[in-house]
């Protein structure tokens, strides 16, 4: 079973073709990373997967549902299985951290105590215990990022999407976020039997969380089962994150283009 299956995605911004016949398959339980030069459409692709943007052509299947054709209620249901960490780590400024997490349960028919319990558990997962009543403006960059991750995981999604999760973080906070992403990805699906949250969720085939990340962070890329390079609106498969030589990736980031005339990416083995 595939968590995401994108077929022939085309997206224009004005006359500029940002995505050109993009095909993407992310099997359940895999960690896939997308890299590419700035403005090549990586964030756009994530927003299309969540239907925050609509493609001009092509279709996206998320857990085998065509997300472009879902009506409002089904779309909300489908989005409940996804968690996205946006690039700017948005949090509602007028609400405290617990209030931001509570947004996910505005329509839920669960008791307030069950919601509070879930919020406390989630904040503990991202190491933000005691931050319930802090306002977003009081948080540092790293804390804000972790709070944004908490917002994304509070509903315990099957699919995690990250848009540059370590951008502009100091090394300490970056390590925290990378470790958190790794832990989340490899965590077993929770038996969501907490009071008021009903029956346990239907587990995915592999019982793992699927992660799709847009990042240029080598530590994150090393976690990836598959690294894809988005260039000229198309995705190119580079290989497994651990196999790719850091030197090759750095050169790729610097030149923002795939080296011509090579059979494939340079691996760690070749580099040594």
């Amino acid at each position, binding site marked *: 079973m595939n968590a995401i299956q994108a077929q022939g995605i085309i997206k224009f911004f004005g006359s500029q073709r940002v995505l050109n016949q993009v095909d993407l398959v992310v099997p359940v339980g895999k960690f896939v990373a997308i890299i590419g030069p700035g403005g090549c459409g990586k964030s756009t692709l994530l927003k299309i997967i969540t239907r925050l943007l609509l493609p001009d052509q092509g279709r996206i299947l998320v857990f085998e549902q065509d997300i472009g054709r879902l009506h409002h209620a089904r779309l909300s249901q489908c989005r409940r299985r996804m*968690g*996205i960490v946006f690039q700017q780590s948005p949090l*509602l*400024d*007028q609400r405290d951290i617990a209030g931001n997490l509570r947004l996910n349960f*505005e329509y839920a028919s669960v008791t307030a105590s069950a919601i509070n319990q879930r919020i406390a558990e989630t904040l503990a997962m991202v190491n933000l215990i005691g931050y319930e009543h802090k306002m977003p403006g009081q948080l540092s960059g790293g804390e804000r990022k972790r709070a944004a991750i908490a917002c994304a995981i509070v509903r315990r999604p099957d699919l995690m999407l990250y848009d540059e999760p370590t951008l502009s973080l100091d090394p300490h906070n970056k390590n925290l976020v990378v470790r958190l992403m790794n832990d989340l990805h490899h965590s077993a699906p929770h038996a969501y039997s907490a009071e008021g949250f009903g029956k346990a969720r239907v587990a995915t085939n592999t019982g793992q969380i699927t992660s799709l990340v847009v990042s240029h962070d080598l530590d994150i890329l090393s976690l990836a089962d598959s690294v894809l390079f988005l260039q000229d609106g198309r995705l190119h498969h580079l290989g497994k994150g651990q196999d790719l030589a850091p030197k090759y990736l750095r050169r790729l980031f610097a030149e923002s283009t795939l080296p011509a005339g090579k059979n494939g990416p340079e691996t760690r083995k070749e580099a040594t």
Partner: protein
Amino acid sequence: MTKRSFRFLPRSFWYDLTQAIWQPFGLSLLLVFSVCWFVAGFLYLTHSTLNLQAYGLTYLLGAYSIGLDREMVPFLVALTLLLTTGISFSSEIANMKASEQVDLLEMAGLDTIDYLILPRLGAVIILTVGLTIIGWVFAFVDCYLISIQMHVDMPGFLRTAHEFFRYSFVWLGLIKAAVNGLIIGLVPSLIVLLRKINNSLDVRRAVITASAVSFILLILTFVFFAVILRYPGVIL
């Protein structure tokens, strides 16, 4: 995981509505604008009284005060609320769009209309209706003070005021205020929500468009009420 109930409004609707009333239009701002309206009405009526005195027609001040209540108060309230609450709501939503907060809401499964617009709309309608009533009280106090200060023929003033007054002014005035509130609460926010906003320049453009469109719609509403509907029993 969580079953969606048939809850029509988000849990936080009433909290957001009260916040929307008090945050942008706090008590201090309300007092400042009250004083402004009071002074504006006082000046308008003073000049009118001076003109009427020149012809010995001060008893017509009652008719002036009714006109002030009927047309100027709802207009001043609508303009004030558009310039404060309406534009502040639209710029808040525009900034939320630029900073991906609206995307966050959508991913949380929230309907942005339910969550962002409905509480603000409710708040603005309550404010326009409430402030129109307060404005009427101020206009009446203005007239009373002027009639004392300028030695106006009080029985004549009350007689003409009574002759020109219709009860329909009250309920039509309240309907007009509610429609103004609908425009101020809905139009700027909706325009901003539907526009593509990525940066501060987009925010500025969106807010300018939203305020201009809303202002034009307010004027058209006044024209509609004054000319097309015509108050029953009154020749304009």
